[in-house]
Each structure stands twice: as structure tokens, then as C-alpha cells.
């Protein structure tokens, strides 16, 4: 086939029925350095072309057997994508005939009598065009090849990512509904959900800057931190600090991840929220139909250094049936054919028109379809409902050790003082310690919940002196958590002591947890007399401890709490 030659030496086909003219042209062309093929009629021209594929054709219009027009048409068809210039040799003067030459694909004319200078110039010009076309095709093919490679790289990256960042409990949880394109990853969209050991749920909706692999590559380390820390029982703030530090360290300066992270607690009936740079989330209260916006109060992850990072969260109370709604900016940024944005107003309209809370998710999807926007890979939405704790069943934790060497008779004491209480959450560590005892593993959820309650009571009511009755209503709730923040920051003195004892008992064993705080205590008798109440926002902690553990006791005016866990021997 044709190769693109560096010099202008071409193989040229002369299709001309007059022998003298043919001879003359051939000589002119050879003198110019080209190689020459000849044909005496249109059919011969097509055959020669098909066999030998010259670079350029000089075609006489009037020829016997097949005329130049038909031959030109056939040759153009044979040459496909490649440009084979056809210069018509003609003494036709009528415009019609000339028009016909162009119609069949002729690129230029040469009048008789032949002028060598003009012929040479035309050949040169046509050759330039021919080579331009060849270059374009080459580059197009190169681009297509590279595109294939990129697509393949993405496929591989996605496969790796899917293994690393398994979809957590997104698909298994009955209270989550979500919408996400399988290739959302390459628009930087990330949606993760996982249970904590206590049965709470952490959900992260993230949006990395950029597109393609750079946007996807940050998602893996982030997902590892999220899943790892959530499984160990770390809270939202600690997880955020780690995620921010990691991204700040590994991402280039101009890359960051907008994210909204929340912890939904079925037991405490609250949601803890942190929004760094994402569009408003919405907390829908079923009772009054109000949708509270959860606006971004923080910079995205990966921007601030660990020292400057702000991990303060907002806590909102929730009732059974309430929903949290999160969406990525792909929803609001969806454009229709007239370049209009879907926008926040339209979203609000869907919310306002909604009558059945269960249907709002579908209604938004429908509204986007009706809007006629182009479907995008970065439209991500998630709806999380607060259900009865009994309806939620976190999967059992998997353990990798053999179970042969297990500590069965030991005790340990800790004293966490003010400086530590401010910045350190000992719960994941304590839980890990306890889970070394195999007999306790089946109760890890209850264990964590009880430990968390004991610790938070000791910290909030004991050391910080907060009044739990503040949490009676929604505004009090917000104030409570605000005060908690302020007092914790200002803390100078105080302590929480934790003592754990594990001893064999009958065929199994017993764990005794002892938590003591430096606070003022409370009226134990009065609190114990209250009936176990599910609906009130405050005062549930004690009930929980009494329900999940055994022999719960409060002594020393409420400053000292004690509870036991038992287990039978494992088969």
C-alpha cells in the first residue's frame, strides 16, 4: 500500500485513450522524477489502480469502454479513507462537464494542451493534500489506540479498587437506598458505608477533584482508613483526622476531596455530621415534614495540615423513620440541552411536592430524567433512614487467628487524665484488647455499646458536668453538643479510670468492667426507678447498660459504674 514518502516522488497513473497524449504525459512525468503507469480506457484504469495502487491519477474524461467519470467514481470507492487525488485531463469547456468532474470526486483539472509547469504545480499541491490526509488518519489511529489503553487502565484500576474498597454494607443494609454510576469512581465520586462495632452506621459521600485515574487514586487510601477505623470503633472525628492527614500527605497540593461523613446511631437516635465542601445534605423530620439542610461548614479533606484541621461535628436528634439525604454536585449541576442547570431550586421543588417520604428518592430520579439532562457518571445520591435497632443486623466480625492462645485470667487498669481525655478516644483500643478473649467475640456489639455508654457518661456527665436533660428537645440537643465541645477544650483537671478483669468462671469466663470518674455523681436511686423508656431523647444510656450487660451497679454516688459479661466455653 502507499507509504508516506519523504520526497515528492510518486507513482502516477495516466488514463488517456490517445496514445500520443499518453506518451507525452508519461515523458513529462518521468522527467519530473515520478514513476508512471498507463491505461488506455476507464476499465483498464480501475484494474491498474486496484492492483498497483498509485498515489495519484491523471484521468482523461472521454474514453471508450468506461469513461473517466465512472472510472473516477470507482477509484474513489476503492481508495476508501485514503486520499488518492484525481486530476481530470480535459479540453471540456462547458461548465456542466466540469461540474461533473467534481461530482464524481475529481480534485482538479488540467487543460489540453498540457503545460508542464502547471502540471508540476498541480501535482505538488495534490500531493501535499494527500500526505496531510495520511497524517490525519495515522494520528486518528494513534489516538484511538491510546484511548483503548486508557479505558483498559481504568478497568484494571476499578477492579483493584473494588477489591480494596468492598462495598461495605451499602448493599446489605436495609435502611440505605442509593444511586451511583459504576464509573462514578472516575469522576471522583465515592460512596462508602460500614457498621461500627456498636451497630452504628458510618456513611461517607465524597467527591475528589479531577477526572479519570487521578481522581480515583485517592479513593483507595481513603476507603482503607474509613473501613479500618470504623470497624475498630473509632468515632467520626478521629476517622476524619486520619483521612485528612492521609490525603494531605499523599495528594498534590491542588487536589482535595470534598466529603460529607456521618454517623447514624440507631440506639442513641441521632446523626453526627461533618460536611467539608459538599452540597447541602438534608435531614428530613417525618413528624413535621421539615427538611433541615446540612450545610458545609468545613474545608474539604486534604487541604489543611493536621494541626489546623477542624474535626468538630454537629449532632442532630432523629426519630424512627426520619431520613438523611445526601447528594453529590452532579445532581444540581446536571445540564439540559439549553445549558440550563437543574439547580437547587428544582430540587427544593421536588422536596416540596413530595407527599410520601419513601418516594422522594424515585421522584428526584424522575425529575432529573424529565429535565432532560444528559446522564452523567457523577450523579450520586444516598438516602439513609433511621430504623428500629432490631431491624438492623450488622454482620458478625471475622477473626483470623486460630483461637489457641487466648488470655483468660488477667486484669488491667487505666487512668485517662484531662489532657488525654481531650484528644484521645480509648474505646477502640480497649475493645481490641477485649476481643483477644475469644469467648467475648460473639458479644462484641453489646460490649462496645456498653463500654461506649459508660465512657461517654463518665466523660460528659461526670468530668464535664453536662446536664443530660438538655437533650430533651432538638434545640437543647444542639446546645448540649456545643457545650460539650467548649468544656472539653477548656478541660484542665479530671480523670476517668477504667478497670477490666477477665477471669475463668464455670466452663467459660467473666469480664468485669469498672468505670470511675472524677465528677459530682448523680442520684442513682432516682434514675434507677425510672421505667425503661424508649422514646425520650435523654436518659437512655443507663437503660442500655442494664439491658446489654449483667449485674449493672452504680456506687460512690454514681461516680463508679460496674457491669459484667459472661460467656460459656466455646465448643
Amino acid at each position, binding site marked *: 500500500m502507499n507509504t508516506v514518502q519523504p520526497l515528492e516522488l510518486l507513482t502516477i497513473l495516466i488514463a488517456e485513450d490517445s496514445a500520443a497524449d499518453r506518451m507525452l504525459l508519461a515523458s513529462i512525468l518521468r522527467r519530473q522524477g515520478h514513476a508512471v503507469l498507463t491505461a488506455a480506457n476507464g476499465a483498464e484504469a480501475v484494474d491498474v489502480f486496484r492492483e498497483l495502487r498509485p498515489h495519484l491519477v491523471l484521468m482523461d474524461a472521454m474514453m471508450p469502454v468506461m469513461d473517466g467519470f465512472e472510472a473516477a467514481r470507482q477509484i474513489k470507492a476503492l481508495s476508501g479513507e485514503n486520499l488518492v487525488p484525481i486530476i481530470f485531463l480535459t479540453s471540456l469547456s462547458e461548465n456542466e462537464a466540469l461540474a461533473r468532474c467534481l461530482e464524481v470526486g475529481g480534485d482538479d483539472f488540467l487543460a489540453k494542451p498540457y503545460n508542464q509547469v502547471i502540471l508540476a504545480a498541480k501535482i505538488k499541491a495534490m500531493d501535499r493534500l494527500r500526505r496531510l490526509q495520511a497524517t490525519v488518519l495515522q494520528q486518528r489511529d494513534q489516538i484511538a489506540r491510546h484511548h483503548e489503553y486508557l479505558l483498559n487502565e481504568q478497568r484494571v484500576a476499578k477492579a483493584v479498587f473494588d477489591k480494596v474498597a468492598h462495598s461495605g454494607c451499602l448493599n446489605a443494609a436495609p435502611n440505605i437506598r442509593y444511586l451511583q454510576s459504576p464509573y462514578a469512581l472516575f469522576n471522583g465520586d465515592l460512596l462508602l458505608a460500614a457498621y461500627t462495632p456498636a451497630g452504628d452506621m458510618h456513611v461517607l459521600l465524597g467527591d475528589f*477533584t479531577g477526572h479519570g485515574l487521578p481522581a480515583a487514586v485517592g479513593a483507595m487510601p481513603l476507603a482503607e482508613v474509613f473501613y479500618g477505623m470504623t470497624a475498630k470503633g473509632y468515632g467520626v472525628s478521629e476517622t476524619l483526622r486520619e483521612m485528612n492527614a492521609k490525603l494531605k500527605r499523599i495528594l498534590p497540593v*491542588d*487536589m482535595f476531596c470534598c466529603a460529607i461523613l456521618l454517623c447514624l446511631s440507631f440506639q442513641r437516635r441521632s446523626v453526627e455530621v461533618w460536611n467539608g*465542601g459538599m452540597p447541602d445534605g438534608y435531614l428530613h423530620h417525618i413528624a413535621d415534614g421539615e427538611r433541615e439542610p446540612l450545610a458545609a461548614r468545613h474545608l474539604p479533606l486534604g487541604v489543611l495540615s493536621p494541626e489546623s484541621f477542624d474535626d468538630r461535628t454537629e449532632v442532630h436528634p432523629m426519630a424512627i423513620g426520619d431520613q438523611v439525604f445526601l447528594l453529590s454536585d452532579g445532581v444540581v449541576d446536571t445540564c439540559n440541552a439549553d445549558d440550563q442547570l437543574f439547580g437547587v431550586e428544582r430540587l427544593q421543588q421536588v422536596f416540596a411536592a413530595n407527599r410520601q417520604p419513601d418516594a422522594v428518592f424515585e421522584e428526584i430520579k424522575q425529575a432529573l430524567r424529565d429535565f432532560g439532562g444528559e446522564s452523567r457518571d457523577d450523579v450520586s445520591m444516598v438516602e439513609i433512614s433511621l430504623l428500629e435497632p432490631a431491624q438492623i443486623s450488622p454482620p458478625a466480625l471475622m477473626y483470623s487467628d486460630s483461637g489457641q492462645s487466648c488470655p483468660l485470667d488477667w486484669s488491667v487498669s487505666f487512668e485517662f487524665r484531662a489532657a488525654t481525655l481531650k484528644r484521645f478516644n480509648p474505646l477502640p483500643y480497649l475493645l481490641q484488647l477485649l476481643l483477644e478473649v475469644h469467648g467475648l467475640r460473639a458479644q462484641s456489639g453489646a460490649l462496645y455499646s456498653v463500654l461506649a455508654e459508660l465512657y461517654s457518661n463518665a466523660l460528659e456527665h461526670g468530668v464535664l458536668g453536662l446536664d443530660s436533660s438538655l437533650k430533651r428537645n432538638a434545640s437543647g440537643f444542639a446546645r448540649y453538643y456545643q457545650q460539650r465541645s467548649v468544656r472539653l477544650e477548656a478541660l484542665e483537671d479530671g480523670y476517668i479510670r477504667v478497670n477490666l478483669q477477665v477471669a475463668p468462671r464455670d466452663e467459660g469466663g467473666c469480664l468485669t468492667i469498672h468505670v470511675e470518674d472524677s465528677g459530682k455523681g448523680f442520684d442513682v436511686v432516682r434514675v434507677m426507678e425510672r421505667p425503661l423508656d424508649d422514646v425520650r431523647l435523654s436518659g437512655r444510656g443507663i437503660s442500655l447498660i442494664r439491658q446489654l450487660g449483667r449485674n449493672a451497679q452504680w456506687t460512690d454516688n454514681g461516680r463508679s459504674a460496674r457491669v459484667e459479661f459472661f460467656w460459656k466455653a466455646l465448643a
Partner: protein
Amino acid sequence: MPVVTEISPDGKKLTISIKGRFDFAKHQEFRESYEKNHLSAIVVDLKEATYLDSSALGMLLLLRDHAGGESADIRVVNSSSDVRKILAISNFDKLFDIS
């Protein structure tokens, strides 16, 4: 659509004006506008900027990093309400003086 720079008469302040869309297409020009300078007082004028996206936010972060990070003095002025909204959601007013 250009990125225009101007140094104040006393040589202490650099003003960078963005015209049109502030997006990835301006990446190189924007960087070149401050790279050779080591002034720590910089004003980014968005009066004629019609649009701002996340890559523009990234470019501002690069600028901040170049100008001293935490100690940089960068003001983003004349933002339209649309631009302000974007800067507000991303909380960039915590990093830059925005008006």
C-alpha cells in the same frame, strides 16, 4: 481569554486578573503569572471571571502554597454572587480573604 498580571508601584503587591472562565484551561497561564515572583501579598481579581470550578480551587491552593502556605496573604476580590457561592460551599473563605 487571558490572565493579566500587574505589580503595584511599590513592588510589594501582585494583582492577577482572570477574564472569562476560571477553569483548567487557564492552568498554565495562571501558574506562570506568579511563579517568577516571590511576593507574599497577592490579590486575585475575579471581576471579569464568569465561572469557577474545582480545578480553579486547586489553582488557588497552589498559589497559596507558593506564597507561603499558612503565612500567605492572598485576597480574592470582586467575586460575583455565583462565584461567591462556590467559594462559600467549599469554605475557602477560611483560607482566603474573599470579598
